[in-house]
């Protein structure tokens, strides 16, 4: 198995699906000769041509609306939103329309659509290039939301998302694109949507996370292992459908849980996870459910001091885990 970065895994996943199925095509801003601003589609234009790699005008609502309409006709569009921060003009097409097509036609019409969304901070992106947008779509019935953390997961989940017959919002943490590397099989493989992954087994404290934060949680778990605290790291991978069973199994084992995400704390994915634990594993809890999340400010500010103050870190996660273990 070759070691690859997240962006390489995303690129491979798309490339293989485009080779496999002529109905798959990519549209978005600068996805053509430029290969996407993060180079997710580098070389695609040359390989697949301009009918299947469509550089769109700079207009996000129509990127998603046009993709949606193409999906009605049985195509499997991948729409790239250049930065998650730019997705709001397309919010109606996703939240208002795509998520209601199957339900609102009584099952007569389905939407095999993937919207790829580079998101997240820690890259000095300021208020408009750092946002976590996943909770808005997490709240929306009819949409699936996937948030991988590793190259292996990114490729396997993206391939599943492309083959899925429902609208999938596929969020890719920008900071993981080149920072996170890992083994990726050369052969065709898919990972099922809706299944979390225990990235590190442990018996003392559970930490539930997704995306970039999974890696900080793993580092924190390593740091604590020398202190006799055995941390289990659950990577949600798919936010919706949420794999409640894996979360509850872990919490029933450890009795202590910390939920970590970069997104704002209020109404974030962690709030739902906490509620599910409270109702599904209350009798097993030895400590209050902890949450370490982004504060309720409009994503991370530009200045390095303020950005650091926003982001959960390996140190702050370790500190919270330490407190939970000692409770």
């Amino acid at each position, binding site marked *: 198995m070759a070691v690859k970065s997240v962006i390489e895994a995303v690129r491979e996943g798309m490339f293989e699906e485009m080779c496999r199925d002529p109905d798959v095509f990519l549209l978005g801003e600068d996805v053509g000769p430029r290969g996407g601003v993060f180079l997710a589609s580098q070389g695609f234009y040359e390989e697949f041509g301009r009918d299947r790699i469509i550089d769109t005008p700079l207009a996000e609502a129509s990127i998603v609306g046009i993709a949606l*309409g193409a999906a009605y006709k049985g195509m499997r569009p991948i729409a790239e939103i250049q930065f998650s921060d730019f997705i709001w003009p397309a919010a109606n*097409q996703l939240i208002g329309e795509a998520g209601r097509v199957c339900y609102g036609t009584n099952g007569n019409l389905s939407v095999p659509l993937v919207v790829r969304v580079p998101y997240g901070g820690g890259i000095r992106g300021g208020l408009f290039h750092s946002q976590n947008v996943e909770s808005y779509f997490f709240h929306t019935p009819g949409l699936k939301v996937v948030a991988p953390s590793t190259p292996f997961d990114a490729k396997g989940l993206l391939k599943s998302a492309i083959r899925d*017959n429902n609208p999938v919002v596929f969020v890719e943490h920008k900071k993981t694109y080149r920072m996170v590397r890992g083994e990726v099989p050369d052969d065709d493989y898919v990972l099922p949507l809706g299944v979390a992954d225990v990235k590190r087994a442990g018996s003392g404290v559970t930490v539930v996370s997704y995306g970039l934060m999974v890696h900080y949680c793993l580092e924190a778990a390593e740091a604590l292992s020398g202190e006799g605290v055995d941390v289990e790291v659950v990577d949600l991978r798919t936010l919706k459908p949420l794999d409640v069973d894996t979360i509850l199994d872990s919490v029933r084992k450890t009795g202590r849980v910390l939920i970590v995400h970069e997104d704002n704390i209020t109404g974030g994915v962690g709030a739902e996870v906490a509620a599910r634990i409270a109702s599904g594993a209350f009798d097993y809890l030895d400590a209050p459910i902890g949450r370490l999340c982004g504060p309720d400010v409009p994503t991370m500010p530009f200045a390095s001091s303020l950005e650091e103050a926003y982001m959960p870190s390996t140190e702050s996660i370790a500190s919270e885990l330490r407190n939970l273990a000692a409770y």
Partner: protein
Amino acid sequence: MARVSRAPSTETALPTKHKQLGLSDDEILGIYNKLVLIRAIEERIWALNRQGKVPIAASSQGHEAAQLGSLTAAQKDGSCFLFPYYRDVALKIAVGLEPEQVMRSFMGKVGDPYSGGRQFPFQGADLPHKIIQISNVVSAGVTQATGYALAGKLKHEETVVLCYFGEGGSSQGEVHEAMNFAGVHNLPIVYICENNRYAISVPQNRQMAVGNVADRAESYGFRGVVVDGMDFFASLQATSDAILHARSQGPILLEMKVERFMPHTTDDDDRRYRPSNEVETARQQDPVLTIADYLKVHGILTDEQLDSMRNEAQEKVDEATDSAEAAPPPDASTIHDHLFAS
């Protein structure tokens, strides 16, 4: 400037307009018969709303010539797919729904062909008749229709998309985005703006600074055509031409100038904002009257036939109303069904 499309005038046209447009006497009579039935259905729906049996309805009264003319063009073509909007009631009935299906949709009963009672009437999809209209967020379907046309082109199909919206909906930013994209990619799509000059209560001069929505087409690199949407034949002719144009050359925008005879919906009171005689004057162009006159002049319809046509329509509407009223609503246990496709 947009061109103006007119049907051949009655005085000089020999043979008759409908024959020039490829319709036999039986065909034009069949279309008129449908129009009579549609009007009877729409009037009944309005009454049922007042009786508390239909929660909400929009009416196509005044738009029927534009809708049936463009639909007839699409049907004669045979390779069109339709993205109508909420006021396209006549169109959605005329594609081939039974009156009872119509009533079930308006009452939210099992058997509603569009959404099984999950949505407002006639919203969702009627795929057997090649229709999609997911929502009534105005013009949200316009980018989707454009994407459908793109997919047809990518699949090398003959499909031409007819995409409908009102002049009110034409103010939405997504309409600009959609037409711009269609222009860039020369997509096989006919944009049909049914301009009744009112966005609920807001008159056209408060919606736009131009006289014709069709004038905007030029800025997207394609043609805009103003059509007399009160004239069935003009609407048919213009749409037939537009379908051929869309298939061979790319997008085109038809602006059908129509009249809205009824308030915006059953929840609206247009006396608050429309001059008292405006609708009365507009009704002189009612296609239910003008097409009847045309058919009578050409000896295709007699007064007796018209009477029996109306009676038959009323009987059908009575039956449809009774059976739809007796039909069950969707079972509450189905509320979670079809959230996702398998």
